[in-house]
């Protein structure tokens, strides 16, 4: 796979179709996906999704320990869908064989739809930026009325109460930092994906199957939930767990396929459809 080693490497395409990705700041999973797809100079198609799945996961993992974890839930939903699609080999061309495939196709369509929707608003935002830039070059006439008319002005109203006035003041005084992705207001404590993986490995090997909801029931904060999800992705990559999600965005079930004596990852076929109970 065309794994990205360094997401901010200075050069663009490096030999033999292997991409080194250079990304602007991105906000949210759709933004990241669109940027990855455009890096490959592709349209938004399932082929494109296929090509960028690994890069997406890589970015997610790179961000995993330092990201604003409050905002990663959406990343995880998208990551899960991408991985499901890739694992089920519905990409790039889909042969619908059973209900599971159908559900995946729906999930894919939904992902496409949300991606295209986001892209539409992003294009509008670019238009807004242009309009604003134009408007900022036109200075409005805003001049006090001539002295001879000053007495004619009607009684002035502020149009706001004291509380609202204070809000306006706060908005004006608020420090204006240089533009950057909002990494600075990190407040979640660091969590170790590795530790959570070990925890899940032991637990799942014993229990066999559990819903994601159950697996994160004891998490104290969002960061731990994210860490646990990333850990699951690791386990998935190892081929020791399978995901099962009947409805898009519905309950996610995790099944252990790694055998009893964990610790030694069994490199199994991720799409194998074994039955564990």
């Amino acid at each position, binding site marked *: 796979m065309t794994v990205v080693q360094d997401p901010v490497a200075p050069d663009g395409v490096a030999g033999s179709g292997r991409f080194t990705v250079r990304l602007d700041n991105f*906000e949210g999973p759709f933004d990241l996906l669109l940027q990855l797809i455009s890096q490959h100079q592709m349209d938004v198609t399932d082929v494109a999704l296929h090509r960028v799945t690994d890069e997406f996961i890589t970015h997610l993992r790179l961000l995993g320990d330092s990201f604003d974890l409050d905002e990663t839930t959406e990343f995880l939903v998208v990551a899960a869908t991408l991985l499901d699609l890739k694992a089920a080999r519905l990409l790039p061309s889909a042969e619908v064989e059973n209900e599971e495939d159908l559900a995946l196709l729906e999930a894919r369509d939904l992902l496409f739809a*949300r991606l295209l929707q986001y892209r539409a608003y992003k294009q*509008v*935002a670019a238009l807004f930026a242009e309009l*604003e830039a134009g408007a900022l070059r036109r200075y409005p006439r805003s*001049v006090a009325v001539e002295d001879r008319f000053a007495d004619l002005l009607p009684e002035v109203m502020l149009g706001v109460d004291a509380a609202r006035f204070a809000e306006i003041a706060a908005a004006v005084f608020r420090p204006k930092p240089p533009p950057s992705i909002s990494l600075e207001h990190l407040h979640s404590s660091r969590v170790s994906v590795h530790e959570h993986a070990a925890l899940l490995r032991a637990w799942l090997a014993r229990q066999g199957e559990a819903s994601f909801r159950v697996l994160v029931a004891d998490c104290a904060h969002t960061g731990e939930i994210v860490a646990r999800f990333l850990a699951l992705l690791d386990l998935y990559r190892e081929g020791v767990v399978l995901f099962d999600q009947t409805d898009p965005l519905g309950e996610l079930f995790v099944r252990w396929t790694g055998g009893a004596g964990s610790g030694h990852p069994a490199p199994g076929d991720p799409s194998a459809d074994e039955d564990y109970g």
Partner: protein
Amino acid sequence: MSDAAPDPDQRPGTPEPPAEGETLAPLSTDAELQGALEALLLVVDSPVGEDVLASALDQPMERVLETLQRLRADYTDEGRGMDLRRVGEGWRFYTRDVYAPFVERLLLDGQRAKLTRAALETLAVVAYRQPVTRSRVAAVRGVNVDGVMRTLLARGLVEEAGIDAETQGVLYRTTELFLERLGLSSLDDLPPIAPLLPDIDSIDDVPL
């Protein structure tokens, strides 16, 4: 004399007669009406509607509107320094954009701050789906928008517009100031977003 021309555009209620002793120019020629409009536009410090101008001039709104449009075209054709624009709720003088570098040299502070991408994207969603809840905007952008929305609210670029019956979430819409900021005269000036959107039945249940 003067009130002889009945005017369908005028709001109900007769316009007030000119104040005692006041001599109003008749404004019978286009040049006079043009001059009077320029004088009014010179003293306003926010966009003013053609209805307000028409009422101050005691002229049919249609004639006022035509004159404003002709004035705008003339200014542009002649490369005048003033740019007459209809923005938000009305008309206002702006400096013509080609002269911006000179204006910025003269003014104390020159360039003004631009909106961030997060703010622009959030405004884009609000503009096209208003009234809309914060969580709906977050769903479209795939990120939390609480901070950005709060700031847009404090800046007067969006405002609250009631409560969503279904989710009990606060609804938001864009403001006049938003239109002014982008130099638009109304939301209708925005391009239709449908062509940009995927042709999938419904991504969610809110019509665009």
